[in-house]
């Protein structure tokens, strides 16, 4: 249940939940809208923070937050070592016997080649991973319909606004003898 009470003497409209709450009335919002929609309602939050509505009672629903799935591809050290050994032995076979100092270069080259291959393999593995993202099945709101609904609540507010009509803006008059001709040409 999600019971709210209207603390004011005017009807409070929650247009995103399509609910009207009469003056001083108490209502269970869960009878009218889904809990997910209630929790997301911007108009409800505004009304609560503006103290036009107050929560009388609501059941707390705890949802388990989905733990983010982190991809940690394991570095296969044995595989890396085998690759390095294989490259080194191929290098050694292809070249004549070399002095000791050149062996260091050969080993270094073998290690960097192997690491490069392993990195590209890891990259392929990461790129092929498709996380299971929740699919958004909420229907999109037609902006024209939303505008119609919003206008109703705006009109209610507008009726309660008083202005003093002190000034009506800065007025400028400009001679324009072409206006009529332009209007005729546009017909």
């Amino acid at each position, binding site marked *: 249940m999600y019971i709210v009470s209207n603390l004011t003497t005017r009807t409070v409209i929650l247009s995103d939940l399509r609910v009207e709450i009469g003056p001083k009335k108490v209502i269970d919002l869960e009878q009218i809208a889904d809990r997910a929609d209630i929790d997301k309602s911007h108009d409800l939050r505004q009304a609560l923070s503006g103290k036009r509505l107050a929560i009388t009672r609501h059941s707390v629903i705890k949802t388990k937050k989905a733990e983010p799935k982190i991809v940690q591809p394991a570095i296969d050290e044995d595989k890396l070592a085998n690759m390095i050994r294989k490259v080194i032995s191929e290098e050694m076979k292809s070249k004549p016997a070399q002095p000791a100092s050149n062996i260091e270069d050969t080993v270094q080259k073998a290690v960097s080649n192997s690491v490069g291959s392993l990195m590209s393999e890891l990259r392929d593995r990461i790129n092929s991973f498709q996380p299971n993202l929740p699919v958004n099945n909420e229907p999109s709101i037609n*902006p024209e319909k939303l505008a119609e609904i919003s206008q109703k609540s705006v009109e209610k507010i507008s009726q309660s606004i008083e202005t003093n009509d002190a000034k009506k803006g800065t007025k400028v008059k400009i001679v324009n003898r072409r206006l009529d001709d332009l209007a005729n040409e546009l017909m």
Partner: protein
Amino acid sequence: MAKGLDIGTMFLVKSEVDAVVDGVSFTAERNVFLKASNSDDTETTLKENNWSYAKYDNDFYILGEDAIKLKNLLTIKTNSSNENIILTKVSELRRPMKDGILNTGEEKLSMAIIQKLIANLIGKAKPGENLCFCAPGDPVDSNLSVVFHKTMLTNFLKSLGYTVECIPESLAIIFSERPVAEDTNEPDGKAPFSGIAFSFGAGMCNVCFAYKKMPLINFSVAKSGDWIDAEAAKVAGIDVSVMTRFKEKNLDLNKIDVSDMKQAALDIFYQNMIEHALSNFARKFSQLENQIESPLEIVVAGGTASVPGFIEKFNSVLSSQTLPFKVKSVRLAENPLYTVANGCLTKALSSEKNSEKKK
């Protein structure tokens, strides 16, 4: 009897025929408000000073030009040594519109206030009165949609009794300024209402290419006056409303003093805004199915383009760009602040004449 209405991010402008001057009368109101403190003498103070205000639910909101004047008057820049002093802050200016459309991030009170400002400006319709207002084109550099904005305003204006139509903002410039292109298919070799229009407003820059009144390209970009003010204010380290005031009153793009941080910053961001608008237009133009060979007139309008030196700056950027069309000429609209409203009025009058003809 018809009216035009330019609903801009910074200004609301009404236009109507004025027989006395054989021309048009424009009434402009700032599209902004400021929340006042809720003390016992607030209403008395507001009335004594003849400030424009609205009252809702025991809260007071100062409207229009008075709001921006008070904000600038009461804003004090503090330096870091004053951080430990607790100051009562002036509230922020509230803008019912942002980026050229209704600011749906604001609460519904904001929308109610802009509707009140509009209702105060244009009043209720006389029987059968036509009203034409403008809306921005779909932006190419953001995800904003203008459908909600157009529908809200159309419904509201209809509720005041008007026969309402809506045209793209930059098309209104074409209707007002009547650029002409060459067309050998026409008897007199001319195609009126053919050219390119740039409306550099506060929230958005709107661009239109029209040929014989038909808009072939119509879009908007988010970099315009407000963006210039915000970015330049950050660079110069001053409040945005102070930068806005400085830009409106003191800036001359022909006489930039580079040692003045405010002027230097504004110059850079003006250049950037023009480049952004032109490059987007060039891209759209090159995507047209049928390319236009005849040279085209460019007309520029809007408050942001009203600063001295703007056309020279625009020409300078234009000459440095490779464009897929030929430029016949570049001109600033006759009255850049009121061109859009004038174009809307022209359209409303034309629709009214059409209706009378059908009767």
